[in-house]
């Protein structure tokens, strides 16, 4: 799926006074992917994003977007990118449709605002003022504004922060929809689950540096952590049968349940197969897979939400 390079960042560095926000960051983003930057608050995600968007001037390194410099070619570049900022606002008394109408006038080839409102589920809110719509609706409006110029590349900075889980899931579908329409998406988040579920590739940032960059699946696989199956059965457990299943390292009782730990992609399927074909009947079953959260913990020695 590797498309042509859309963003190239080489040894980016950005300092605010005595604080090094971005120490040394290099990566590439390819056409048609959802690329995520995750890390705790203050890791340098937003600074990196805003340097790429051309809103900030790096103190070192080089950035190319579509082969252009975001700082020197700011205006032609802004025609081709869509930006949703982490912190921004519109005028309180500006109506939803007026915001789209206004932003459309800034670009050479805007898309149909009506259709965009429909896609973002804002048609009913089109006559409402910015101050009167909910947080989720504001985020959707900002996405609509980021898409009004039919951009090839869309930046979404902390898109789902402050949204309830339901709105967050709806937002993920929306982002996948953006990619499926052929655009490249660059997003930042401090939700590991979001990065894992949504991104084609993920860069994990900590203290202004990239500590890992790969697909979420590869990052988790490389971690080598165990998966766990936790289950209860009717009747007696044949421990030995389960211990012989490929990849299983341990089988332990825990309260009324049993916990099987092990490695490998086929672990869950094989263990369940072993249980059911040996005359045991599952009453409950859940699995615990390693997540990006575990990857972060392993790489930095800290939990994400600290």
């Amino acid at each position: 799926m590797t498309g042509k390079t859309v963003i190239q960042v080489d040894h980016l560095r950005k300092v605010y006074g005595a604080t090094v926000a971005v120490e040394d960051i290099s990566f590439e983003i390819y056409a048609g992917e959802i690329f995520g930057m995750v890390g705790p608050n203050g890791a340098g995600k937003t600074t990196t994003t805003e340097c790429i968007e051309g809103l900030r001037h790096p103190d070192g390194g080089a950035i190319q977007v579509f082969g252009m410099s975001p700082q020197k070619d700011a205006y032609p570049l802004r025609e081709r990118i869509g930006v949703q900022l982490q912190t921004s606002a519109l005028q309180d008394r500006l109506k939803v449709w007026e915001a789209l109408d206004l932003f459309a006038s800034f670009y050479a080839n805007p898309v149909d605002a009506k259709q965009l409102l429909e896609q973002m589920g804002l048609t009913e809110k089109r006559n409402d003022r910015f101050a009167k719509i909910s947080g989720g609706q504001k985020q959707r409006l900002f996405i609509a504004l980021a898409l009004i110029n039919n951009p090839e590349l869309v930046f979404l900075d902390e898109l789902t922060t402050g949204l309830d889980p339901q709105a967050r899931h709806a937002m993920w579908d929306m982002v996948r929809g953006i990619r499926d329409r052929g655009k490249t998406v660059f997003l930042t988040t401090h939700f590991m689950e979001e990065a894992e579920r949504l991104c084609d590739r993920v860069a994990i940032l900590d203290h202004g540096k990239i500590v890992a960059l790969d697909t979420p699946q590869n990052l988790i696989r490389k971690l080598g952590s165990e998966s766990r199956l936790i289950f209860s059965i009717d009747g007696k457990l044949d421990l030995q049968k389960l211990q012989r299943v490929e990849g299983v390292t341990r089988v332990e009782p825990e309260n009324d349940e049993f916990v099987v730990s092990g490695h490998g992609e086929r672990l869950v399927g094989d263990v369940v197969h072993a249980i059911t074909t040996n005359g045991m009947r599952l009453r409950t079953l859940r699995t615990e897979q390693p997540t990006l959260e575990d990857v972060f913990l392993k790489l930095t020695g800290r939990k994400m939400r600290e």
Partner: protein
Amino acid sequence: MKGLWKLTFTEMKLFMREPAAAFFTLVFPLMVLLIFGSIYGNEPTPFFGGYGSVDVSVPAYTGMIIGSSGLIGLTIVMSMYRERGILRRLNATPVRPQIVLGANVIVSFLMTALGMALLIVVGKTVYGLRFAGNPLSIFAGFTLSSLSFFALGFVLAGLIPTARTAQVVGMMLFYPMLFLSGAAVPLEVLPEKVRQYTSVLPLTQVVKLLRGLWIGESWSQHWTEAGMLAAMLVIGVVVSAKTFRWE
């Protein structure tokens, strides 16, 4: 120029939806005119050089509108746009800073002019307002005064870090000046001592210039006022261009 007209039109609508801004620019000066008009009428008097109270008040109140548009209206709008991140969002589009500033200047100018027009219409219909000047000359004086005060508003918005402080500073500059410059109270009623000190205030220049042009005096009689306003405009533009920040 892309976006300028749409942005101007949008800002115009927003202005009309902002009750405070519309009140102080359009309604309040009219109220003051009607209140003092009903007290003093508009009979010619030697005290005002053969003109009536309303005749000298209309150009003076125009100065009041200019002062509040620049020092309060524009200052609040620009500093609030920056503080809330509205300018940040605009900066992420291809729109140029000059367009954003230009649109706000146009809206402030049109609204200030509308405020003046209302004063003239009401003054004329209710009190038989007299005018001995040249309309073009008055328009030129109005434009110079407005632009130099708008420049001052941009300077305040650019130099003062928070919207709240900018608003307070704008008001602290505006309100004392309103009463000392002759914009609210005729210069003639101020004691001679006070008038000496307040003759250097920016708003005093506006009031003197507009009142003079209103009764047909020439620009050459008011070159000090015009010169001070022009200097304020030039300095204001230079400083606000240097201090403009998107965030």
